[in-house]
């Protein structure tokens, strides 16, 4: 395998792993779009870092990105604490305003630094092909550090994520832990920016977590699974994009992730829609008796009116895995129930003559 391809694949895999796993910190709090905001808000930091240092070394730019991203989130937090403005508006405003400042700075850089800034907006749109071994080292170190931190503080992280009030009651320094989580998230975003770019970053953060969530309810498993999905999509996406010319890596990774998330929606056990379909087939064998029992109960509750009952009443009680309609039709064939179109089902009378009478 060609060296550049190896580098790009490793980089994309690392990106997927780190962003996917750390992205769960935001996704599970229903704040997934923080990734989008931080990515956009990173721009002024990137440009300023370049203007001040004169260097376009990724580490420098990433540092600038991290600073301005964190500042944006702090601004959002302050707005939330002191005004009536809600999370979505505060986030959207920070996103757009910071990006606007970045655009202004970018146009300033265009005058002062001339052609040297041309590479800066590549940061905006991602160019995986420009990844170097050194970048991989940075990503790996950052990745290991963040993972280590999360694992070391696992219990505290879980509590802060899911039950902050309880954590506070336990005496945990919730504010400081939340700051830490913010910093981790910002770091994950910032190191991924040069691979997928600003716009696509939120997918890389959200999709793995959203997909993983369909497969498990336990945070540890979700965390690892999200990382795995990210890693898989990253590596595969990078490889796929190398197969033909003019296939930018970022979009391919994102489309893979979207596909994975959608697939998970349908296929995952318990919650997946297809899984429920399979369970229905299995339950069909055993459920005839249950259907009859429920129908009997329905009729018992209406002793004075011999009324048919809708299948949906039976379905709701027995749950989605039981194919009530199919069973009712089967029972009808056996002569155990009767169907009145538009009205519902009733138990067949024992007396065959009575059956004919009630039909008229």
């Amino acid at each position, binding site marked *: 395998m060609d060296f550049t391809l190896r580098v790009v694949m490793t980089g994309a895999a690392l990106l997927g792993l780190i962003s996917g796993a750390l992205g769960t910190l935001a996704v599970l709090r229903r704040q997934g779009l923080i990734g989008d905001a931080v990515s956009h808000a990173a721009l002024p930091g990137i440009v300023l870092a370049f203007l001040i240092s004169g260097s376009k070394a990724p580490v420098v730019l990433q540092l600038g990105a991290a600073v301005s991203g964190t500042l944006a989130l702090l601004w959002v937090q302050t707005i939330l604490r002191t005004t*009536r403005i809600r999370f979505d508006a505060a986030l959207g405003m920070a996103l757009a305003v910071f990006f606007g400042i970045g655009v202004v700075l970018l146009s300033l850089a265009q005058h002062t630094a001339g052609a040297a800034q041309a590479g800066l907006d590549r940061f905006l749109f991602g160019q995986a092909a420009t990844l170097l071994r050194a970048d991989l080292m940075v990503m790996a170190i950052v990745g290991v550090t963040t993972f280590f931190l999360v694992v070391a503080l696992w219990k505290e992280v879980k509590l802060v994520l899911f039950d902050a009030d309880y954590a506070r009651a336990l005496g945990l320094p919730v504010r400081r832990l939340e700051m830490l989580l913010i910093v981790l998230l910002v770091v994950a975003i910032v190191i991924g920016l040069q691979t997928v770019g600003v716009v696509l970053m939120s997918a890389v953060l959200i999709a793995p977590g959203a997909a993983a969530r369909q497969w498990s309810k336990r945070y540890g498993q979700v965390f690892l699974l999200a990382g795995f999905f990210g890693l898989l999509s990253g590596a595969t996406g990078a490889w796929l994009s190398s197969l033909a010319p003019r296939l930018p890596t970022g979009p391919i990774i994102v489309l893979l992730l979207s596909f994975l998330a959608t697939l998970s929606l349908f296929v995952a056990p318990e919650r997946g829609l297809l899984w429920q379909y399979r369970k229905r087939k299995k339950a069909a064998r*055993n*459920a005839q*008796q*249950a259907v009859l*029992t*429920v129908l009997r*109960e*329905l009729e018992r*509750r*209406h002793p004075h009116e011999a*009324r048919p*009952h*809708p*299948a*949906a*009443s039976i*379905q*709701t*009680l027995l*749950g*989605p895995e039981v194919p009530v309609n199919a069973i009712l039709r089967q029972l009808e064939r056996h002569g155990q129930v009767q169907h009145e179109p538009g009205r*519902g089902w009733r138990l067949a009378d024992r007396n065959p003559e009575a059956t004919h009478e009630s039909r008229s």
Partner: protein
Amino acid sequence: MKWAIEIEDLTVAYQQKPVLWDIDTAIPVGQMTAIVGPNGAGKSTLLKAVLGIVRPVAGRIRVLGKPFQPHERRVAYVPQRAELDWEFPATVLDVALMGTYGRLGWLRRPGRTERAIAQAALERVGLTELANRPIGQLSGGQQQRVLLARALAQEADIYLLDEPFQGVDAPTEAALLDVLRWLKAQDKTVVIVHHDLSTVAEYFDWVVLLNVQCIACGPISEAFTPENLRRTYGGRTVVAVEEPKAL
């Protein structure tokens, strides 16, 4: 007796779990009816199903003999306070005026008539001085009153209220009750999801005991019995069915 609301075979499911199951009940015209039951019994859902806000998986609902049609505006709805965003930029009068929107229909603006109706409604609930107050500055009791005013401004025949006495102080509760009794005196039908068992017998004529199924319904003297209450509140069984034999 004429029925304001008739419900047959109503089943409502949320994410494949039954919230209401096989409900058969009827609510009489011109009476004050309470709907009571434990938390999660489906009381709010019952109101919403009648209003068409929630889609049942099965069942038929008739309002005054016909299926519910929103544009006929014969049914007024007072939702739970907590379901609304009270930071919304509106005044007390704005909200009361909303009750008149139905009679205006699309595109027409509220005029003097509508304003008068809204003002009268506000006066009936005792909020005239607060007409220009932003709703974000209202207390819980005042919020409840303004929602009732909105319903009054609709000049409907049936009033459905979801826990209107929840979290209001005694004077407000008395004031609200006054208005509702006034409505009953005008032969309007009042149906209330009520959270306080201790006042059911005093406030209401008719009761529906609900716990996913309809446990009992009827006049207070007949249906509001200790036995029925025990069956309603004693444990969250959906249906007592003997175990299916062959599985």
